[in-house]
């Protein structure tokens, strides 16, 4: 009996191994990803669109790329750019790269990509992260200069947000339906309403990925996507709600870029007094909010609206402590007990906005503030945010700095009379001076020191109500192994399938 078993084993093991080896290359690895919205277009330069980016991040390359640590690394450029004078950056390009349609990748393609996205006729709404770029110039076939309007230390980071398109194909009328890039995946089909299909680019210049074909399905309702994941129809879903985490076959999560906060007016009303602003912060139990509203998939923000992924993050700041007694004492000191604070919150748009607003108002009430909570439609909210004449004492917001550079956050929210969202809530000449210095500082160590100062001052002055840093949560099927990136991009090339 034993001998018989041994014979079977001896025969079976190599046989099975041979069979597996023979079968492995033949079986294509297909994955299906449920994304929350259908791309509005597959033109990678036209608009700011989550669905489009999920697909095109795999079809197109950029000159620079962020590695898993979040550092900028070469991609279509062979090295990080060299700044040859205050406003010019020189990129050396990779040679021998072809677009999926056979067009050559070279300096012309790069110049064309820059020119195209800024062409006023083209009306791109996706230039937000590229502000300050003046143009690009060909030096030779594989060298390009990118010019900025002023000294811009962020230019390399910006180039991660500029996909390189081919000169000829991008002029065709169907380019928005049939993307042509240099990326590891090429476009197969887009059946509107149903799916987009990509397949591995056999001529990819870089490392060959494992996944052969990827199907993107558009499922807005998280409950539906989760059921599809459980059923094995999907291998991936984004924006998995925290209360669904326990039911997902497999979960991938990481500290995200999204920071909820509120802008407190420092120039008018009761919040003009820094003690009132501090009291508003002390009154709110951030840990409880993270636990009860996000099931622990969030953490109190560390006194700023960016995380440690970003350049300019101040490591020494801590989350604002919860201390209602201190809040009461500060209010008493400021003679602001029972003062009315208008608090405007949008009814939707970011996760749990309404619940956050209600909870915060409750905490304020507990320390003796009369919150005048106004939960409004998003468009009304935007009007209150942007028109200085109707700006409330406190207004809720959420910030997602995908550039991973504090400069963007600071320009929008910390600078006096900023052109962005915070116009009119801040007037602080001291702060402005530091910001101006930081913007014009080419040396990274000195730049970091300046941002440390800015973040510290914003914290000490309680310019904002610092709330939560939420996690990015993804659902995966059992067979897929994948780690979320700190910039929230989803690259098929980083997916492994068993």
């Amino acid at each position, binding site marked *: 009996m034993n001998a018989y078993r041994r014979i079977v084993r001896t025969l079976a093991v190599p046989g099975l191994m041979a069979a597996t080896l023979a079968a492995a290359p033949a079986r294509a690895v297909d994955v299906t990803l449920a994304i929350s*919205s*259908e791309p*509005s*277009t597959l*033109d990678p330069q*036209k*608009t*700011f669109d989550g669905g489009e980016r999920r697909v095109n991040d795999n079809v197109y390359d950029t000159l620079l790329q962020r590695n898993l640590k979040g550092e900028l690394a070469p991609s279509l450029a062979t090295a990080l750019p060299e700044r040859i004078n205050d406003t010019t950056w020189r990129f050396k390009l990779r040679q021998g790269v072809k677009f999926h349609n056979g067009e050559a990748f070279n300096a012309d393609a790069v110049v064309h990509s820059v020119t195209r996205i800024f062409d*006023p006729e083209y*009306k791109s*709404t996706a230039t*937000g992260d590229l502000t300050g770029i003046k143009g690009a110039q060909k030096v030779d076939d594989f060298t390009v200069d990118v010019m900025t309007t002023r000294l811009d230390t962020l230019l390399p980071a910006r180039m991660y947000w500029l996909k390189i398109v081919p000169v000829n194909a991008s002029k065709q009328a169907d380019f*928005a339906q049939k993307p042509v890039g240099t990326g590891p995946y090429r476009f197969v089909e887009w059946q*509107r*309403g*149903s*799916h987009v299909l990509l397949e591995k680019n056999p001529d990819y210049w870089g490392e060959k990925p494992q996944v052969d074909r990827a199907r993107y*399905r*558009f*499922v*807005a*309702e998280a*409950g*539906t*996507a*989760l*059921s*599809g994941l*459980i*059923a*094995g*129809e999907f291998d991936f879903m984004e924006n998995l709600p925290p209360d669904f985490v326990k039911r997902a076959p497999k979960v991938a999560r990481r500290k995200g870029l999204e920071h909820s906060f509120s802008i407190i007016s420092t120039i008018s009303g009761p919040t003009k007094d820094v003690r009132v602003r501090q009291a508003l912060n002390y009154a709110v139990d951030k840990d409880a909010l993270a636990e009860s509203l996000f099931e622990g998939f969030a953490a109190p923000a560390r006194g700023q609206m960016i995380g440690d992924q970003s350049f300019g993050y101040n490591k020494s700041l801590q989350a604002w402590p919860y201390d209602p007694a201190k809040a009461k004492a500060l209010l008493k000191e400021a003679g602001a007990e029972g003062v009315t604070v208008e608090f405007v919150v949008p009814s939707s748009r970011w996760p749990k906005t309404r619940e956050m607003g209600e909870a915060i108002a409750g905490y304020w009430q507990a320390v003796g503030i009369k919150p005048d909570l106004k939960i409004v*439609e*998003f*468009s*009304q909210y*935007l*009007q209150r*945010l*942007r028109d200085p004449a109707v700006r409330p004492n406190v207004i809720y*917001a959420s*910030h997602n700095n995908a550039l991973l550079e504090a400069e*963007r956050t600071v320009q*929008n929210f910390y600078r006096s009379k900023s*052109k*962005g*969202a915070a116009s009119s809530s801040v007037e602080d000449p001291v702060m402005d001076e530091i910001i101006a210095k930081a913007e014009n500082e080419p040396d990274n160590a000195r730049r970091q020191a300046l941002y440390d100062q800015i973040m510290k001052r914003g914290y000490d002055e309680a310019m904002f109500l610092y709330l939560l840093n939420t996690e990015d949560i993804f659902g995966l099927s059992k067979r897929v192994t994948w780690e979320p990136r700190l910039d929230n991009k989803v690259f098929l090339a980083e997916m492994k399938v068993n």
Partner: protein
Amino acid sequence: MNELSWFVVRRLFQGLVVVLTVTAIVFVVTRLIGDPVAIMLPLDATEAQRETLRRALGLDQPVYLQFIDFLRSLFALDFGESYWQHRPNIDIIRERLPATFQLVGAGMLLAVVLALPLGTVAAMYPGRLPDRITSALSLVGLSVPLFWLGLILIYVFAAQLRILPSSGPGTFVHLVLPAVTLALPSAGRLAMLVRSSLIDELNAPYVKTAVAKGLPLWRILGVHTYVNAAVPTLTMIGWEVTRSLAGHTIIVETVFAWPGLGLAAIQAIQREDLLLLQAIVFVVALMVVVINLALDLVYKFIDPRISV
């Protein structure tokens, strides 16, 4: 022109007024509550960026000029270009309509097929066990929220039993769950109505006479009572189709990622795609008017006493 033609012409004219009124209301309301420019640009866009986009979309014009422009293009059957998809709205609608027709067609057919026997059985034994079971089922059907029903069906049949796909378009089996979801609440409402109108008819003197004369039940039901109960039932079916087109499909299509007009409507609202939303409302209002007109004509054939 005979009486019937006049009727059709009059009704078409009334319908046109309804469609234009609905479109005008949507036009004004969307412009009062929303600013597509604000939604389309990131939170920290500059005023200059917003102004450029506003001008590009023609939203810098006064509302009445925008409306005149809109009406003018409507008569040319030009629904404008979608802000969201950067292509003609008519293309989007043409792409989405078949999916909605499939869903509403299958759903309503199923609702009628379920409701007729249930309502009949209930009406034949009023107050007895079959009636109570049917009424309870109908009550559950008509009061269950569509959204919840859809998710439960997906969870049971796709995630647990794995016999049906969870979502999306594709083959006939993809249609099953969304159609059932759309059908059940309608079937509940319809069954209740079939029951009550049949009970009315079954108690009418002519039925008593027929029973006394010894006519078989199938003949009484089939030839007399069904025909007489048909007018309220058809009204209700028309109403259900209208409700499905103008409301329920939005929920069902969202839950099942079913690429129809309802899903397009909710996407247009989320992205403040005003022109697309207007175009969809126009098309749906037009369909509602046509359905009502068709029903009026059908009544006329069923019951010649109905004056036009």
